[in-house]
């Protein structure tokens, strides 16, 4: 460990100065070098974006600024925060630094706030840890900061509990907690990943205002190139613990130097709006008429209506994109088609079976014609079975094969179809990467050659570059096997790459539906328009224009 360096004459003006930082984690599988001799500076009032895939060390690097590393980590090098080295700082000194000099905004606002205290109390807690303040003074400050981050009626809402705020407002509260002590730098770890696009746009605006009004430097960690283009001044690209490229944002997007950066930018899905040839019209496989799905409420309370009068058709060989923000009911519809959620009203016809009042015994024979790909490949495999056993499961259940070894031939074929080596069949799910697991998941869904494939956000848990490859594979398989697909996603750019037709859902109702090119190219519904306008494009110049447009539209 290097000796404590209190000052470096050249770097005192930088808000954060990371020098030769090296972090190693001790794990069950041996040591893992998470950050490999990284050096970077953040100037006051600058937004520095650190981008990279999961496992690239971007979060670990940023967490070192606050000394927030787990016990299993060993850090060497220096992280100078207003001239104080954080790496060698004592716990007491770290406690002084946190909040006052550097603060953090977390990815998931609902877990970053303590549910049993009011937000005012939580903001005051940070204040009173650093200065002697009376309760009343702390409260005044809390109200003031809540107003400044755009919480309406802060005098009243300062006494609200976290669950009384929406997701976007919770993130505003978290940002208020970070800002209240006027820190030199805010570390924002994927601050918008858990939020919907329209809310994301607002939070990005707020962060931009933080920088402009408070002069706070922001270290933004993200994998979303659209967010980077929207907010960042300078970008650091990390790969496997090393910095690959550092450049101002305009230069990076216009003229990337490193091959990895080029590949990363190429993999970002863009709205290109292609009018695909529609499949021949035929009798629909899935047909919903005024579909209503209601979750039962607690005793004496009405239930929650997740899907409210939705009608659509899905024909053979067609890819139908189901788009919407969280809470729009898109996943519920997918689950209802697979028979995982009960239909409570209207009619839903799946492969000739009426799902309203369906009995599992009648539907079971049809199940072999439906494949399902889940959102998170990490949890959709039984961790105690090998990949081959998991993929063989549908074959065994439907009596095509007697056991896993009898099904092995077919399993190998399937693995090859999804471009996985045969030998991977003998591995356990945790020995595969996310993208490989999602391929295996596709193989399992296709095992019985289904007519219908339901894909519930199959790529949202994956890195951009991996996502691009999985989407390509999906398109290729769809062409080859000709299955119909209900593709559920929140990402309009992904829908644009695959879907023949699009259904836009908003609060359980259909906002707009039609051919993909028409809906995305010339949206008629105001909600669809807002959704499209909020989508950040990975191009700083165009994104600035879009931002202006959005502001004008909001003002008008």
């Amino acid at each position, binding site marked *: 460990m290097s000796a404590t360096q209190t000052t470096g004459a050249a770097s005192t003006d930088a808000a954060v100065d990371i020098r030769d930082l090296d972090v190693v984690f001790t794990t069950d*599988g*041996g040591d893992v070098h998470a950050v*490999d001799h990284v050096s970077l500076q953040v100037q006051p009032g600058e937004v520095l974006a650190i981008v990279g895939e999961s496992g690239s060390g971007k979060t670990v690097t940023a967490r070192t600024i606050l000394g927030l590393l*787990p016990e299993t980590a060993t850090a060497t090098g220096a992280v100078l925060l207003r001239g104080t080295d954080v790496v060698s700082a004592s716990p007491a000194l770290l406690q002084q630094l946190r909040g006052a000099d550097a603060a953090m905004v977390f990815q998931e606002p609902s877990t970053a706030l303590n549910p049993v205290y009011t937000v005012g109390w939580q903001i005051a807690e940070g204040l009173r840890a650093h200065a002697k303040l009376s309760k009343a003074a702390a409260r005044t400050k809390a109200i003031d900061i809540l107003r400044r981050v755009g919480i309406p009626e802060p005098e009243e809402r300062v006494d609200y509990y976290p669950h009384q705020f929406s997701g976007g407002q919770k993130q505003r509260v978290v940002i208020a907690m970070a800002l209240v002590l006027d820190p030199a730098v805010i570390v924002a770890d994927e601050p918008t990943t858990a939020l919907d696009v329209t809310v994301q746009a607002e939070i990005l605006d707020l962060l931009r205002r933080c920088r402009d009004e408070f002069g706070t430097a922001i270290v933004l960690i993200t994998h979303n190139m659209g967010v980077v283009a929207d907010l960042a001044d300078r970008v650091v690209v990390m790969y496997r613990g090393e910095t690959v490229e550092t450049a101002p944002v305009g230069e990076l997007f216009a003229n990337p130097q490193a091959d990895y950066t080029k590949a990363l930018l190429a993999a970002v899905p863009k709205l290109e709006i292609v009018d695909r040839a529609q499949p021949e019209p035929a009798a629909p496989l899935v047909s919903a008429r005024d579909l209503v799905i209601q979750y039962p409420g607690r005793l004496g309370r009405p239930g929650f209506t997740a899907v409210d009068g939705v009608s659509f058709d899905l024909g053979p060989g067609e890819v139908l994109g189901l788009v919407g923000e969280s809470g729009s009911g898109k996943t519920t519809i997918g689950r209802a088609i697979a028979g995982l959620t009960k239909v409570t009203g209207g009619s839903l016809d799946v492969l000739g079976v009426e799902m309203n009042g369906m009995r599992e015994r009648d539907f*079971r024979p049809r199940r072999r014609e439906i494949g399902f790909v889940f959102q998170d490949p*990490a949890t959709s495999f*039984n*961790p105690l079975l090998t990949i081959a056993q998991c993929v063989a499961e549908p074959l065994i259940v439907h009596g095509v094969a007697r056991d896993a070894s009898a099904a092995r031939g077919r399993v190998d074929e399937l693995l090859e179809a999804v471009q996985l080596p045969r030998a991977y069949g*003998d591995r356990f799910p945790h020995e595969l990467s996310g993208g490989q697991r999602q391929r295996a998941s596709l193989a399992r869904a296709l095992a019985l050659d289904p007519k219908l494939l339901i894909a519930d956000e199959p790529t949202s848990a994956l890195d951009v570059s991996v996502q691009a490859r999985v989407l390509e594979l999906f398109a290729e398989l769809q062409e080859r096997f000709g299955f119909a697909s209900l593709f559920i996603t929140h990402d309009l750019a992904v829908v644009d790459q695959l879907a023949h037709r699009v259904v836009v859902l908003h609060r359980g109702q259909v906002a707009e539906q039609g051919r993909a090119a028409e809906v995305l190219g010339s949206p008629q519904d105001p909600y669809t328009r807002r959704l499209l306008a909020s989508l950040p494009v990975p191009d700083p110049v165009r994104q600035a224009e879009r931002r202006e447009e959005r502001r004008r539209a909001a003002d008008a």
Partner: protein
Amino acid sequence: MSLNSTPVASTENPRSLRAIWRRLPVIHHLRQSVGLQRGMLVAGLIITGLFVLVAIFAPLLAPYGYGQLRDDSGRFAPQQPPGPAHLLGTTVGGYDVLSRVIWGSQTALLVIVFAVLLSIFAGILLGLVSGYLGGWVDRVLVVIADAVYAFPTLLLAIVTAIVITGGESDLLGGILAAAISITVVFIPQYFRVIRAEAVRVKSEAFVESAKVIGAKAPRVMFRHVLRNSTRTLPLIFTLNSSEAILTLAGLGFLGFGIEPTKAAEWGYDLNKSLSDVTAGIWWTSVFPGLAIVLVVLGITLIGESLNDLADPRLRARRRRRGATAADAAASAPLGSPASATDVVGVTSASEAAAASSTATTGIDDQEAGR
């Protein structure tokens, strides 16, 4: 994460015998442990191993029988201090203390085996069905389990002992009385644990994916839910074993144990040695008592270390000693960079988020905890 943290090297065939051996609960934990946790586990394993060996080879190890009062040279003198003829002395009734202690281990082991065998299958089955199916079956079973919890173990044991033996306490009757009374109390414990795990596992995506495939409920329960619900079983198993011994000893101490002519039992011996204590005769009480303490300690040590090792947040890991990046890269199996970041992700993102958000505002841990 803790489920799939097994570092199986990718070059091995995972189905080979050796890999299976390494994945066995205790063996796997032993390989994984380090430092104090390893010391605790090893100490527990040694004590328990000794106990089992002594129980199995009791007929060979014990110098006399458990009910033996005389040998070729005549009747044993009562209350003899430890000496060459009787290494640990004799009791007031003239029994050899060493032999009684050794034979007593056999009784204790039998009670553990019976109690656990009787309760584990019923408990797991009920828990699995209750947790997976839910609904009114679940509610009724939970209420019954809670009601049984309300009974003190010892009281139940006394009632069962009277019902089963009708006052006559032979070896099998005594053991069964203890075992069944323990079983009644243990079934709800296994039930509870397996039910909680089944409820958790059943909402996992892989169970839903099995349902979507069209697998029937029994197949989903036994192939997908059961094996993923058993990770806390070794822990309860060990804790229950020690409780079984304590209940048996308690029964014996209260006089509901096994007659000295039918089998040796530590609790009974302790009871009979009560009056000796004031008379300065220490050997009749110390050795059976020590045997109880040691066995319970050994088994509890195993249980506690298994508990710590099963939790990635409590588990200690080998500290790095001058290892280079190349070493780490070379020793890390193929899947491990991903799983390593998962470990980081788990502790950092989900669980620590709330805690560390208070930490970032500069409140020290104690204050945040208040």
